[in-house]
């Protein structure tokens, strides 16, 4: 297998399961030294065990804790070298019709899914600017572009990631750093299994390829954007949704 990411240091947030786990494994297969994060020590240990053979490591990180983000980025720099690929994948849902959504349900989603991207991106920038290279790839969602009933908070956060990435891409493009977004459609993960059967059926009918996506479909898109072959792509949102939505 070719190793287009040999020598790269990749931080993947939310790498315990689902899309994040697939991204971490795929980047490691492509040759990167991968540090995957989980919210608990047990989760971090499990990532370390799963990825040990591939040269991956687990760390505990609460992406809503600014000091923790900075400390982890520092520690990775000292232990492995400066982070050259950041994948912002950590995210949660708290679905509710707006009529019933509490302000806290809105705020916690913005903090965990959007402000976290600000924190991690800012923390890795110094190293990337000095290196004159870097890849920041954030996982958004098709609903950040289309909207979805019951997900006003989640969709707002994901749309925010897209605009954030476009702005940052313009700021740091001159330093050889690209900033992109992968927007998954309906992927078979714990998060989508939590949707109601009406939601699932409604969504399935709209997918041109007639099936759910697999976490590895997203991981391969991320690996491409992290690779040297994607050097001229920045500020872009790559939709990986089986034709569910075509911009």
């Amino acid at each position, binding site marked *: 297998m070719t190793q287009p990411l040999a020598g790269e240091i990749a931080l993947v947030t939310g790498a315990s399961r689902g899309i994040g786990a697939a991204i971490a494994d795929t980047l490691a297969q492509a040759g990167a030294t991968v540090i995957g994060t989980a919210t608990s020590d047990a989760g971090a240990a499990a990532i370390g065990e799963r990825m040990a053979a591939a040269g991956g490591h687990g760390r505990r990180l609460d992406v809503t804790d600014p000091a923790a983000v900075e400390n982890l980025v520092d520690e990775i720099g000292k232990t492995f070298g400066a982070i050259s690929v950041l994948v912002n994948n950590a995210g949660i849902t708290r679905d509710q019709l707006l009529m019933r959504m509490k302000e806290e349900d809105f705020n916690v989603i913005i903090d965990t899914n959007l402000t976290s991207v600000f924190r991690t991106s800012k923390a890795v920038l*110094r190293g990337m*600017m*000095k290196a004159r290279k870097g890849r920041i790839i954030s996982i958004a969602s098709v609903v950040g572009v289309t909207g979805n009933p019951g997900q006003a908070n989640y969709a707002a956060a994901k749309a925010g990631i897209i605009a954030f990435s476009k702005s940052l891409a313009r*700021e*740091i493009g*001159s*330093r050889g750093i690209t900033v992109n977004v992968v927007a998954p459609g309906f992927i078979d993960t714990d998060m989508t299994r939590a949707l109601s059967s009406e939601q699932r059926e409604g969504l399935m009918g709209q997918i041109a390829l007639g099936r759910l996506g697999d976490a590895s479909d997203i991981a391969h898109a991320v690996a491409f954007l992290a690779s040297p072959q994607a050097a001229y792509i920045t500020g872009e949102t790559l939709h990986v949704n089986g034709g569910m939505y075509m911009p």
Partner: protein
Amino acid sequence: MSTIEERVKKIVIEQLGVKEDQVTANASFVDDLGADSLDTVELVMALEEEFETEIPDEEAEKITTVQQAVDYIKAHSKD
């Protein structure tokens, strides 16, 4: 050991890719040395590392010339 002036000058030359004779004491990073806003942020980062000090944003904004950088470092540096 180089003087603070020499070390600041060296960083400005490296960061902004300018020639040594351009880096006069009163040279403005933006107006005379062609720095853009991101260059000035990087310059401050490099000064912070070289002199092991932290320059708060409100102070960094006031450092617009080579001499101002030297003066700030002299007033705040540990060495």
